[in-house]
């Protein structure tokens, strides 16, 4: 690809970018949010037409006008957000839209799917409904679908963001095997370790421009980060660990006793002090998100009691939780967070507006002031406050949801995977923000699948496994290996208290 440019209203997403992909290599495409990674792969995949530049595939100039054309030319794509039909079966999802005959041979299709699933070690049955699979398995099915289309180029956009470590390795094995077969893989991720583990070469983009193309072994990690961030490098290395001063005798801001929910989380006790940052650590499916949801009553609570500042309160719906000063940034940004067609402004003011009440709408001027204040404070990159949130990049959407909660000035804020699928720069910004908020006296529960992030921000980690709390770590105990140990021992001996 030579000199690719693409503009959207108000943004130049790609500015004369060159990109070369060789047969049988794994090529990592790196860059911050809004660097143009997604745009570039969407141009390759035929989702968007380029404004200018040229693309050649195996020596022939090509110009895709539709994703279907790209697919027919052997370019398969798996996007960050899973784009499958949850109410169809696994096999149907793998073969949908690919048959040239109006008739479907169900038996053959299911058998074929079953064979493919087995060969890729995917723990799913062909006739199972997709929605009954975990996110990770769904992700792997999407890859299987792309792989089965005999692709020459496989594009993986953040394929590992919802996978646990074992699953990542299964995926990597699969990627290596495909590489052996001569498939060229474009790999987008925010996990730097994974880039070094699997990729052969790296292309770095920043603000829609090409920074450079590098051999992975020739570029040290710190160099890669500095290339991605420009001059923001000192931010990540200079991020100090936060140690709040909390006396254990003070009354906790929030306290749950024997809380359980309809999502199947075992009754648990939980407290958080003013200005404390703690977190639920554990693997995917350990119950860390379910616990957070139980606190906010995002899932119906089935037992237990809740105290705020020592007083017993009844929280039955998210609205009660909000009114008691609890905020919750959900794990599933697309499904539970953003209202995609509404403007950035409406998305920011939504919760505060709900707190104000049905009969007290903000004036447009007031709403605009709120929106502008937080667009500036969180450095949200959007053309205007009027822009629909769906046209923003993932990291900026996440900042909008954060802004929504900060605007309500909660006493206790739960952040479930606030940094998932977003770039290093924004990650650092969010971690810094969490620490700054704690300094101002806000209590924060920070959940992340990246343990180093939690170790950096949290002063106390509640370790979970199989939907129950198996341990608690604080102070000097907070190391990655300690967390792993607690998870491995799995509740046989409680470490804390």
């Amino acid at each position, binding site marked *: 690809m030579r000199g690719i440019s693409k503009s959207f209203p108000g943004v130049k997403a790609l500015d004369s970018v060159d990109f070369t992909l060789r047969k049988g290599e794994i090529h990592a495409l790196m860059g911050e949010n809004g660097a143009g990674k997604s745009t570039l792969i969407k141009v390759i995949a035929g989702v968007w037409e380029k404004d200018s530049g040229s693309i050649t595939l195996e020596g022939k100039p090509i110009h895709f006008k539709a994703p279907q054309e790209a697919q027919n030319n052997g370019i398969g794509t798996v996007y960050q957000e899973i784009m499958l039909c949850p109410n169809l079966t696994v096999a149907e999802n793998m073969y949908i839209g690919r048959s040239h005959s109006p008739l479907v041979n169900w038996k053959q299709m299911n058998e074929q799917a079953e064979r493919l699933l087995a060969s890729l070690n995917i723990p799913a049955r062909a006739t199972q409904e997709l929605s009954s699979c975990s996110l990770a398995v769904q992700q792997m099915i999407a890859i299987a679908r792309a792989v089965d289309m005999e692709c020459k180029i496989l594009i993986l956009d953040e394929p590992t963001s919802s996978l646990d470590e074992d699953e990542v390795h299964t995926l990597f094995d699969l990627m290596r095997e495909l590489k052996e077969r001569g498939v060229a893989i474009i790999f987008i991720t925010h996990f730097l370790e994974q880039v070094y583990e699997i990729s052969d070469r790296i292309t770095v983009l920043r603000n829609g421009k090409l920074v450079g193309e590098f051999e992975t072994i020739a570029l040290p990690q710190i160099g890669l980060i500095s290339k991605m961030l420009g001059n923001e490098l000192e931010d990540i290395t200079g991020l100090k660990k936060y140690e709040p001063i909390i006396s254990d005798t003070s009354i906790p801001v929030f306290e749950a006793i024997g809380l359980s929910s309809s999502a199947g989380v075992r009754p648990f006790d939980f407290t958080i002090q003013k200005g404390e940052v703690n977190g639920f650590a554990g693997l995917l499916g350990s119950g860390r998100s379910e616990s957070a949801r139980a606190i906010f009553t995002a899932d119906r609570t089935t037992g237990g009691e809740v105290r705020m500042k020592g007083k017993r309160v009844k929280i039955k719906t998210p609205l009660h939780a909000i*009114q008691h000063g609890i905020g919750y940034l959900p794990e599933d940004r697309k499904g*539970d967070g953003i209202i995609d067609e*509404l403007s950035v402004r409406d998305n920011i003011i939504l919760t505060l507006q709900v707190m104000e009440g049905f009969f007290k709408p903000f004036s447009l001027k007031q709403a605009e002031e709120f929106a502008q204040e937080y667009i500036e404070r969180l450095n949200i990159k959007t053309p205007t406050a009027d822009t629909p949130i769906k046209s923003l990049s993932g990291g900026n959407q996440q900042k909008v949801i954060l802004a929504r909660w900060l605007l309500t000035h909660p006493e206790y804020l739960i952040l479930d995977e606030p940094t998932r699928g977003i770039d290093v720069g924004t990650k650092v910004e969010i971690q810094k923000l969490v620490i700054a908020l704690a300094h101002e006296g806000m209590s924060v529960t920070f959940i992340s699948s990246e343990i180093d992030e939690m170790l950096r921000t949290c002063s106390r980690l509640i370790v979970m496994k199989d939907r129950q709390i198996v341990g608690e770590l604080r102070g000097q105990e907070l190391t990655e290996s300690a967390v792993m140990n607690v998870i491995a021992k799995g509740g046989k001996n409680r470490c804390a208290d």
Partner: protein
Amino acid sequence: MRRLMKRFSHLVLPLSVMALLIIINLIKGADYFRVTMVNGAFYGNIPNIFFGASELVILSIGMTLVTAASRGQDISIGESATITSAVFVQYVLQANEVTLLTILVAFLLSSVVGLALGAFNGTLVSIFKVQPMVASLILFTGGRSIAFMIDGKLSPILANDLSNKIGTVIPGIPIQTPIILTVVFIALTAVLFRTTNLRLYVEAVGINPNAARLNGINAKKIIFLTFLIMGFCSAFAGFIAVNKAGRHDSVNLLKLIMMDAILAVAIGGNSLGGGTFSITGSIIGAYTIEMLNRTLLRLEIEPAMIKVFKAVFIIILMVVASPVVRAFITNVVDRIRSAFRHSAGSGPSDASMSAAGRAGEREE
């Protein structure tokens, strides 16, 4: 300026259809806009459109809200209006002397019935999660029989002076009463939107009910509320319709009007799949439909053939408004603009950008 235009880009479609219809009518006869005074009130093609579209405009407002929040349509609106107006007529007929108070009480009574019918549909949709169209199918099927029972198996006549005034004109006021009532209703709607968060709540629920719930909005209540409003709209439309007709014909009153109401919502640039909405669009859409109906009449098309013409017109309209065609037009317009810019050396003004181009831009 450009931002303003962008905000109204969804009105481009109904307004251009209106313009087209006006041109057709002017070709047919230059007297299209002529307004005459008969018995101290304005008559003519344009006042007739406003007069004729009254019920449709009111019902389209309710339909817009129901569509936006519940992602489905209420097909029982004509039947609800028939039931409420039957109640209205029965109350008026039992009075010894029809005074303004009688009419007022009868209207309030019919409104309560309208709200109850709305609550019935709303309960099915919001609590029992029945698809809106299926839920309203019940009243659609049985509604006219219920009205017929209320009527005592007759079609009672509203012969009093006040009803006549409500249905036609009040002496001394040059504008027909249904037009005034419609304007009042639109104004009430505007006040409702000004003083509440109805728009934000309905849009949030229609786009992403999960996120709405997690931000403290009770999606069930909001969907229920839109059906309540729809019920009131039906009662109001039934009130106008029965006073216009002067008798209660439970078989034909506002028959199949839900089709036009749904169409008005679509012409107004609203997605029938819910989410963001424009009431203004639906109102203009409703007037456009009435204008179309009357244009076909004016062109002296055989009555039996009118529906065919209407159908063809709507197909063309929907194709022109489809995202595919809009994107194509945007593309063409952009090319013309860039060619123009190269030759003129300076950027063209906003005015040179075609309306279709702007409409397409919104799709981005």
